[in-house]
């Protein structure tokens, strides 16, 4: 069985190699190769899963040592895999959702002439992501971590002919670098602290190490998680990442890669458990992000950006749960899995809408689409109900548990965190209802030619405004796109109940992450009831604003908060003023020092050496007689020096 683990990664890696090196010959079959290999990886995952279920909870961990990667005295990095319940969960999610999205992309990317390359990148992503979750040490995890970063960069910038896509890819890459530096520092700290970076020894030794060091490691890990999972303050890249093709947004920037930070924190649970200060920071980051993302999600008219804000917010929930320690780890992962289903489904639905609407993304140009795209409407609707936490659907079970756990943190912290989580749930209900209403209900605003929007709106007016306007013909997408959506909708509906009822998921994951029952200051029922209440409030407000009244085709100016939220709560302005300007000033002063001081010394040296060279060169005058004199002089000096050495 152990040998199969490598196969999980090998299949998509092979796909990536074949597709990216194969050249145009494979254009016709490239997408099938990619899809089959992704499915193969999923199949292997299922085999391993059934095998794992057949064993008792204590014997479920599999390890496979492939080879020694960097064996240097005292420093040992192995390519070794570690498959336990946590990794297994991720393997199934990644390869399962990944396969569905491969299938979806066959239809979605049909008219793209670089489709083969797209599937190569997708396979590369799968391989890297699986490596990330299967690695048995932090260094190998880092390889996967960078691998998914690369795949993400390539896929965001896939339509590189669009400057905005190229810029977005660069932005994502750069912001992620900040987090990656955190991870590399964490790994170095681990090596100096524990002398190794394999999960087993590091996590076992975490309990007996000084808290200061562990806090440092934990905070560096959190920085890494913030980068990859788009948490405040490294959240700014995720919105722009929606420039990538929609399947990419669904797979990488909603369901899987952005959850890598949560994986990292849960995997390193032992370190965080022993560093309560760091845990507090984690919960704060999670709570801030879940509100931040939700607020941004309320203001966006671009359907994908609204969903991106929602992703940020939902991952905020997971990070919050992960920061709560053993009372939250399992729920973080549970929400991660259910979120994987409904968010992927929502994105695929958004892609389907765009597919039928000539790639229009502005929700103010949608409206009344439920008649034209019934399958999309139903699946998207189920995803919507799941994400807002409609009782009985996936999100309800997982999110409710997190809110409960946040209250159970105890004391003022518990109230604040729980309150934030509850508020977030209300906002989620609001903005998701808004998306739903603007897209599928109301007037058919796409029938009229668009009017130029005020400069403040961040939605660019469509390019063809000047010419004769031909309204789009909304239509249902092909079955290769709708089937994955239907499958994901099933997951959105039933996964939560399946996991939550009878604490099935808890028993599955507990041996790895550990679990402690929290005791909320109010009863669980109260929490659940208030969740439902805020849900109703959020939906009601949205209905009042977007359901009862017609939606203006051009965004109104809006309040100060709305305008700020449209600008992603000024995240880019903040980065620009603080980091870019500050960086420029720093660079300029460094350049000045470099020019005057360093270059002065260097150029001065160079000039003097050059001058010396020119003068010495004159000694070489071409006359044998003067050469002979120099030899004679040299010999005399040589003899004299030798004699002198004896004399002294």
């Amino acid at each position, binding site marked *: 069985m152990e040998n199969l683990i490598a196969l999980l990664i090998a299949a998509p890696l092979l796909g990536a190699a074949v597709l990216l090196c194969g050249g145009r010959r494979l254009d016709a079959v490239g997408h099938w190769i990619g899809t089959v290999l992704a499915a193969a990886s999923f199949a292997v995952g299922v085999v391993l899963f059934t095998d794992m279920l057949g064993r008792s909870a204590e014997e479920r961990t599999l390890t496979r040592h492939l080879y020694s990667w960097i064996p240097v005295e005292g420093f040992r990095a192995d390519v070794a895999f570690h498959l336990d319940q946590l990794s297994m969960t991720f393997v199934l999610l990644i390869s399962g959702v990944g396969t569905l999205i491969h299938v979806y992309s066959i239809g979605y990317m049909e008219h793209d002439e670089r489709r083969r390359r797209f599937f190569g990148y997708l396979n590369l992503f799968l391989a890297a992501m699986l490596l990330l979750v299967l690695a048995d040490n932090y260094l190998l995890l880092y390889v996967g971590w960078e691998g998914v970063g690369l795949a993400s960069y390539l896929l965001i910038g896939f339509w590189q002919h669009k400057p905005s896509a190229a810029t977005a890819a660069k932005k994502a890459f750069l912001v992620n670098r900040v987090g990656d530096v955190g991870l590399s520092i964490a790994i170095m700290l681990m090596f100096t602290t524990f002398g190794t970076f394999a999960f087993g020894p590091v996590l076992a030794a975490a309990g007996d190490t000084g808290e200061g060091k562990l806090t440092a490691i934990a905070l560096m890990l959190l920085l890494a998680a913030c980068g990859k999972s788009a948490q405040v303050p490294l959240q700014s890249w995720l919105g722009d990442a929606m420039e990538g093709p929609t399947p990419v947004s669904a797979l990488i920037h909603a369901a899987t890669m952005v959850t890598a930070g949560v994986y990292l924190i849960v995997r390193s649970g032992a370190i965080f458990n022993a560093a309560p200060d760091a845990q507090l920071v984690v919960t704060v980051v999670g709570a801030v992000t879940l509100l931040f993302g939700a607020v941004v999600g309320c203001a966006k008219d671009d359907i994908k950006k609204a969903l991106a804000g929602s992703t940020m917010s939902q991952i905020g929930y997971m990070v919050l749960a992960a920061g709560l320690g053993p009372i939250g780890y399992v729920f973080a992962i549970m929400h991660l899995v259910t979120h994987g289903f409904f968010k992927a489904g929502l994105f695929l639905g958004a892609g389907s809408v765009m597919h039928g609407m000539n790639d229009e993304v502005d929700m103010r140009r949608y409206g009344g689409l439920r008649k034209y795209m019934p399958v999309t409407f139903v699946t998207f609707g189920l995803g919507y109900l799941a994400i807002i936490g409609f009782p009985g659907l996936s999100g309800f079970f997982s999110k409710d548990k997190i809110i409960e756990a946040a209250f159970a943190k105890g004391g003022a912290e518990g109230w604040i965190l729980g309150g934030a989580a509850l508020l977030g749930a209300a906002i989620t209900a609001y903005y998701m209802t808004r998306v739903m209403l603007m897209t599928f209900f109301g007037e058919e605003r796409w029938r009229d030619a668009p009017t130029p929007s005020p400069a403040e709106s961040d939605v660019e007016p469509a390019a063809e405004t000047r010419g004769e306007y031909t309204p789009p013909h909304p239509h249902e997408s092909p079955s290769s796109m709708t089937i994955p959506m239907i499958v994901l909708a099933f997951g959105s509906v039933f996964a939560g109940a399946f996991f939550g009822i009878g604490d099935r998921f808890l028993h599955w994951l507990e041996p790895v992450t550990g679990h402690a029952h929290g005791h909320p200051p109010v009863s669980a029922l109260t929490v659940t009831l208030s969740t439902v209440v805020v849900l109703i409030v959020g939906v009601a407000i949205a209905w009042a604003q977007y359901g009862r009244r017609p939606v203006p085709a051009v965004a109104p100016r809006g309040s100060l908060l709305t305008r700020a939220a449209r600008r992603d709560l000024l995240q880019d302005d903040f980065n620009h003023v603080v980091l870019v300007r500050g960086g420029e000033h720093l660079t300029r002063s460094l350049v000045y020092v470099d020019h005057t001081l360093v270059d002065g010394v260097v150029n001065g040296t*160079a000039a003097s*050496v*050059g001058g*010396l*060279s*020119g003068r*010495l*060169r004159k*000694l*070489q005058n*071409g006359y*044998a007689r*003067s*050469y*002979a004199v*120099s*030899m004679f*002089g*040299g*010999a005399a*000096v*040589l*003899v004299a*020096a*030798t*004699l002198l*050495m*004896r004399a002294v």
Partner: protein
Amino acid sequence: MSAPAVHSLWTTAADPISKIDAPKIEYGQLSPTLIVIGAAVVGVLVEAFVPRRSRYYVQVFVSVVALAAAFAAVVALAAGGYGTTRAHIAAMGAVAVDGPALFLQGTILLAALLGVFTFAERRLDPEAHGNRVDSFAAQAASVPGSDSEKAAVRAGFTTTEVFPLLLFAVGGMLIFPAANDLLTLFVALEVFSLPLYLLCAVARRKRLMSQEAAVKYFLLGAFASAFTLFGIALLYGYAGSVSYARIAQVVDGSVQNVDPALAGTMGNDALLLVGAALTVMGLLFKVGAVPFHMWTPDVYQGAPTPVTGFMAAATKVAAFGALLRLLYVVLPGLRWDWRPVMWAVAVVTMLGGAIVAITQTDIKRLLAYSSIAHAGFILAGVIATSAEGISSVLFYLGAYSFVTIGAFAVVTLVRDAGGEATHLSKWAGLGRRSPLVAAVFAVFLLAFAGIPLTSGFAGKFAVFKAAAQGGAGALVVVGVIASAVAAFFYIRVIVLMFFSEPRPEGPTVAVPSPLTMTAIAVGVAVTVVLGVAPQYFLDLAGQASVFVR
């Protein structure tokens, strides 16, 4: 000295001839040298008896076979343990057969083999009157520009004598690092120098410059030889013997039976010090160390480029071999006297070579100054006075000789109407026009500069490491600074080749025959292999690092 003692000397000398033992010659152990010298003699006979049309082919054949056979003999000797356990002094104490000797002989033979390939190249120059011509004058004896020269060109003459000349030079070079007494050393010096003087004079193009170079080289070489010979005489006066072992014993003070006739002068330290200094000076002249380097740029520039390449590589190997043996076998007891002096020489050589090279505008002169700087780097290894010092120098010499031959072979390819285009300005943009040639040359330049993954780095690292361990840390610092200075002009050529616009009237790159191609390819291959995986060769040099005494 008393009268009876003098009488006994007289009577000893007057003993019958029959009492002189026939010298014992180990032909097998001397076979590499004997093969090459024999082939050189055959080459002379070929000149005399083989028809002119086929001389070239016969000469190339004889040279290649002889050098290959000699190399095989060296390998066989090394495999037979003569490099390590069975190291031996052959020919009545005249020639050492030991690790350093065999290693250097092997290096010289391989360098000479590549040298023969470049000598034999006949496709670079345009055909003269329907005859393929090489880099050498049609008739070396004719006055440049005279009617007799034109007639010789018309008749399709070629100077095939270069091949036996090269073989004679190689013969001398093989003995030079193996010489185990001062007279053999001197004879070897002259045997390899005289053919080189001649070879320098026979360029087909720019013949006046070539002849000037040869005359300069000859005059200064003769001058240096005179110093050497004087030094040898003084050393003989000091030790009463020319044998290395014997002199070493006298220096150590461990000598047993002093010849009464020499008791008066023996052990006079002034003789020793002056003699040693002058002898070493002759060798420093050959390696091109400052301040005995002045011939190098002029000769490198004037000599036919294949000769320059061969000479730059093989002479340096042979001369450093001889210098190592002299300092490590004869004068180890004197090292506290010669080390500081050699320190100074190494410092001025490294810095002088590197600094003056900066303002050079001719590629051959540039490489000449580069070779001076490299002589300084190798001297740093010599100064280490340890086994690591020897092995690092051996490795460096091996690496350096291939880079040098390859680099000069590339220089022969870049040509314009006047022959080789050696002025640096003409190399501008070569990378655009002939990326492969420029890339190959860039590899050689990077190796000269000592950039990692080239043999230059491995060699430089080895000598600096040995020098630092030998207590010459300051020298290493100077060496690194000199390397930095040197990197400037190497990289400048690369920048010139790849990042400048090609000049419209720039040179063309001639397509060589497989001969030159082989020489360049082997040069690149060795450069890269020694750079990427140097350990095997470092081990080989390490095994060969013990001198027989």
